[in-house]
């Protein structure tokens, strides 16, 4: 079992002022490492509207590379404005995953639209930054990964990686909507696609990670990290209904693979669980693993899926 030493809540969005689009939530952290700081992208929300509905934006916080708890800056604006009328990302851009592409930074993000019969649909978009990840512009007004026969709706949670000169995108795909307590909830599973150019994607069209707690288990945040000759995936999973509390809420799972195609799920190795008390005592979700100066860290969300921000854990030893 891996041993993660929790270092505590790192960023609390409710303490940020002067940004009406950043009131609460700091979800789905994703890092971009610079010479002297670490930029962490996350997704946040202004207050809910009169109908109780949220939109979501994504932005970043810069951390001192020598002391990650030293916050040296917060984005002045969201990384993208919301999409135009009728587009897939009109009501939210969450989550976002970033990667360097030469001197540019590419972002793959999930865009949210609102539907009549179910509350929302989600699709994956692409944006490019030419100023080091401060501002981005869309590569097009539509999504980069279309729906398909086997992935009919709710394509979300992109994680962009590059291995061996090839682009890989891990994401989740909805497979059904389930009615529970008068509310439609999507069931989604972890999927993968690869690409030569980052634009045209060849998808595997199958669930990568077997379900463990129930057939309709929802899986999210497939964060893949290569270390010691093996691919490691930390992700989160929860029950399909009644998941907004501790008992059936998100936990962090783990799988490994030698070839990125076949994955062996071994949650018992994940090595990180809810705390006895405090900000991460009810649920753990949206893990993101990164290496920095010889150490391996995980950023993750706690209770209420990041309403009060994200925290940091440090691996004792290495991923092998």
């Amino acid at each position, binding site marked *: 079992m891996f041993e993660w030493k929790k270092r505590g809540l790192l960023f609390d969005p409710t303490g940020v002022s002067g940004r009406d689009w950043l009131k609460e939530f700091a979800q789905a952290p994703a890092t971009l490492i610079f010479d002297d700081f670490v930029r962490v992208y996350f997704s946040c929300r202004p207050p809910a509207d009169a109908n109780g509905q949220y939109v979501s934006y994504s932005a970043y916080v810069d951390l001192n590379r020598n002391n990650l708890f030293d916050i040296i800056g917060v984005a002045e604006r969201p990384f993208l404005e919301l999409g135009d009328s*009728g587009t897939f990302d009109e009501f939210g851009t969450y989550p976002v995953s970033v990667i360097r592409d030469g001197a540019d930074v590419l972002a793959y993000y999930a865009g949210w639209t609102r*539907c009549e019969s179910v509350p929302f649909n989600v699709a994956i978009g692409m944006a490019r930054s030419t100023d080091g990840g401060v501002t981005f512009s869309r590569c097009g007004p539509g999504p980069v990964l279309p729906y398909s*026969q086997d992935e009919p709706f709710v394509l979300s949670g992109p994680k962009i990686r590059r291995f061996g000169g090839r682009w890989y995108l891990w994401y989740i795909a909805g497979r059904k909507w389930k009615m529970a307590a008068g509310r439609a909830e999507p069931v989604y599973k972890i999927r993968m696609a690869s690409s030569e150019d980052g634009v045209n994607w060849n998808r595997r069209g199958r669930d990568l990670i077997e379900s463990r707690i129930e057939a309709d288990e929802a899986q999210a945040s497939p964060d893949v990290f290569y270390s010691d000759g093996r691919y490691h995936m930390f992700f989160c999973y929860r029950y399909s209904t009644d998941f907004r509390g501790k008992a059936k809420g998100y936990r962090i799972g783990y799988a490994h693979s030698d070839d990125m195609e076949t994955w062996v799920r071994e949650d018992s190795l994940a090595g990180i669980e809810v705390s006895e008390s405090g900000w991460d005592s009810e649920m753990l979700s949206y893990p993101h693993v990164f290496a920095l100066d010889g150490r391996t860290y995980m950023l993750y969300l706690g209770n209420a899926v990041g309403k009060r921000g994200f925290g940091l854990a440090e691996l004792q030893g290495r991923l092998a």
Partner: protein
Amino acid sequence: MKWRKAGRIFDPREHQLPNGCVEFAQSPQTLVFDDFVRVYFSTRQRDDTTGKYLSHVAFVDFDKDLRRIRRVSGQTVLPLGGLGSFDEHGIFPINPLRHDGRVMAYTCGWSRRVSVSVETGIGRVVSDDDGETFYRQGLGGPVLGASLQEPFLVGDPFVRVFEGRFHMWYMFGTRWKQYEDADVPERIYKIGHAVSDDGLQWEKQEGEAIVGDRLGGDESQALPTVIAFGGRYHMYFCYRHSSDFRSNQDRGYRIGHAHSGDLLHWTRDDGDSGIDLSPQGWDSQMMCYPHVFTCNEKIYMLYNGNAFGREGFGLAVLE
């Protein structure tokens, strides 16, 4: 080119339709059998929960002269998609074809949105009973939908194998526009093209409107149908202004035409379509949703008239 009108050949109000549908027979499209012609169309059921419509697929079988009706489908041809699916609130239109001895169809599925009225996508369904019923494959998602440069409203598929490859002509949305005198945003869409080796994996001419505009940038173009005759390919489609087009007959749908020698480059020449509004009657205010096909060595066009096909469809024969 000259089309001789044979008049309206199907009025949905005169028939018992499946799914409790009472009006509309939109976008007629054919599957020609040895001794009859099956015409699929979309008809409408009132959704009691919202007061809005649900579009369902039905068909009517004609003798091969397209005069005598043999029967109307008595059961559901293709059920609507499940909760949250792209085709949950309607299938309109359906484009049937035979390939390798199998009957299949491409569909345009509709699902409702909140900020705009609707989103569409293109599905593919197959039939094991010669087109009496169709079913979905996989998890029932679309085979063609929104992409980077075609952000929404991908629909109206027309698929044929030409020169050894699957070709699809379809529409894609370019903008939802709020006009000053309108209550809600209106859509603008253009005709696009994609090719495929297997009919499932499609390669778009991404974001390219392949037929030029006649009414300016706010022209909407829909429902392409393509046929080869006279040594070239002919495309018929319908086009209209994107605002005030429902009741102002000067701004409503007309039938356009373009021709091509290579399936890629199209020259628009609506003046050569050879068909226009009648002075009076069922197709005197609007003409839309053309479908061109060959039967008994004649070339026919099915189309809808006034009110988007509320009162059925008619036929014309190429002279």
